[in-house]
């Protein structure tokens, strides 16, 4: 049954029916949705409220003193906290670099794989593997490879004529190494999304364009790109939020060092809350982070709502 595409949620809506059926419908709806809703209410909505509550206290774990109400002083302290500002900056740098490179590479590679040449499908399937590997293991193996004494990356570098480089312990290099690892892991995912989007592009639009005599690059910029816009935005937001909240790589490879060069916001939050055990302060950071993520996820949801991605 073909339904109109304006309201995503009214697909397959059965026709209105009698009172008895309506009551049964209501009961069924409730029974079907309530359990999932309850789980999410308890483990998603309630924690947000609780985090707000915690953030208004001085709350240290494992101390004899009980938590003390403190109003907005945790937020005030955050405002003046240079280390917090640094962590936001580092996160920003990380997201822009990592996601930027992943989008460009993934986009380009999608075109490379967009062909029926023999064996390309298999190669393409193999490339997805990095995106499915446990992020902690990704951190582990790249930590091994970047090691300055026996790491393979250094070996390649030396072969190419350089000297041994302390990739993970030298200032800006550390962040770049983390970016490189993230790019390795997630470019395949981005590529796969763009590939699928390319595959779903309708043939007839291209036929029409060719008939109209548009050149290759004109087709690309005036036809392909606009058609891919929804996919681009969707994958951009997904990657941006995932990069914002990830800390496995920093955990395994640099632990925020050297000197805070890779201290991303999640890492500062984690060490504050679960190493220094200052839960109140960590909760304040958590609330700010949640606010940011909510904005981004609202964007995502609007995108999804506005139009179908593959017409």
């Amino acid at each position, binding site marked *: 049954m073909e339904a109109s595409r304006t309201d995503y949620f009214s697909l397959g809506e059965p026709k209105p029916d009698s009172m008895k059926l309506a009551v049964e419908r209501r009961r069924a709806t409730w029974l079907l949705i309530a359990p999932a809703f309850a789980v999410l209410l308890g483990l998603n909505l309630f924690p947000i409220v609780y985090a707000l509550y915690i953030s208004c206290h001085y709350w240290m774990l494992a101390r004899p003193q009980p938590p003390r109400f403190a109003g907005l002083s945790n937020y005030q302290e955050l405002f003046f906290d240079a280390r917090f500002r640094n962590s936001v900056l580092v996160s920003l740098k990380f997201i822009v670099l990592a996601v930027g490179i992943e989008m460009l590479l993934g986009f380009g590679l999608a075109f490379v794989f967009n062909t029926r040449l023999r064996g390309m499908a298999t190669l393409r399937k193999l490339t997805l593997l990095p995106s499915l590997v446990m992020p902690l293991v990704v951190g582990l193996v790249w930590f091994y490879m970047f090691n300055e004494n026996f790491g393979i990356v250094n070996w390649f570098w030396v072969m190419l004529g350089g000297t041994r480089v302390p990739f993970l312990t030298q200032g800006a290099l550390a962040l770049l190494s983390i970016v490189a690892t993230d790019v390795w892991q997630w470019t395949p995912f981005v590529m796969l999304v763009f590939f699928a989007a390319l595959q779903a592009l309708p043939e007839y639009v291209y036929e029409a364009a060719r008939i109209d005599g548009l050149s290759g690059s004109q087709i690309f910029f005036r*036809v392909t790109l606009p058609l891919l816009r929804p996919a681009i935005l969707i994958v951009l937001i997904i990657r941006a939020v995932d990069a914002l909240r990830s800390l496995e790589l920093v955990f395994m490879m640099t632990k925020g060092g050297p000197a805070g060069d890779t201290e991303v916001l999640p890492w500062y939050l984690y060490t504050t809350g679960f190493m220094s055990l200052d839960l109140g302060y960590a909760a304040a950071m958590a609330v700010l982070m949640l606010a940011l993520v909510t904005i981004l996820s609202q964007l995502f949801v609007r995108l999804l709502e506005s139009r179908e991605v593959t017409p």
Partner: protein
Amino acid sequence: MTVGLVRNKDLKAGVRRSAAAWPIGTLRYLVAAIFTGFCLFPLYVILTTALKTETAIFAWPPVWNFRPTLQSFYNALFVFGGRSAISYLINSVIISAVSTFLAVVLGAMAAYGFARFSFAGKRHLAFWILSTRFAPPVAFIVPIYLMVQKAGMLDSHIALILIYTAMNLSLVIWILRGFFSEIPIEIEEAALVDGYSRLQIFWRVALPLVRPGIVSTAILSAIFSWNEFLYAMVLTQSKAATLPVYLAGFSNSMGLAWGEYMAVGTMAVLPILVFTFALQKHLVRGLTFGAVK
């Protein structure tokens, strides 16, 4: 609207069809091969390091030809100075399996509810559920830790199972909602006429028809639960500790038991690789929440 995935079409989007396709083809193969190699190389490193002897692991320049040994696997699983990886492995399996089961069951029910019924506030509820996909564990862990602690459920399987279920519900609901809405409504209306109740229709008619969706969301949920590290690290210690917790206990300044850690890494990664390689078709839909089919 077409159902299911669009097949691999002979379409060179954005590239003008030219007669001289051969050098472009070679270039494609080259780039694709390099990229694929780059993707697979670190996985190769994990496996080979797990099979190397200690001297080979620390050798410089790196050793490419070596005699493989299963010593690291043996150590990691059964010896390793007192705490073997086996209990962590078992916990990972149990927690992933149960949370996946719960997520799929609860999610399928809710997905059907969203697909077939309308009620006040449905759109807002649906959007809210979608947005829970983006929940940052590092922010949620602060209140959730206190909640779990006060409930006396620290270092318990059930806490992680519930949290992972919540983590995966968004994905399951959104994907299956799409699958359910693609079922022709006439089938269900016919069953209604035959006197089945709504719930029976869900269970006997609709659910079997979305089996591919169930399989793919189940596998994706299992992967996400299996890979999750932060909640596990903070909420468990020994009884319910999963594989990522074992790996996270590693540090860069002491006792670098690389072989054993790579062996555990191999164990952590292998099941995923095997299953998803077989699962390609529905992955894109799953990973982008149906935004791209």
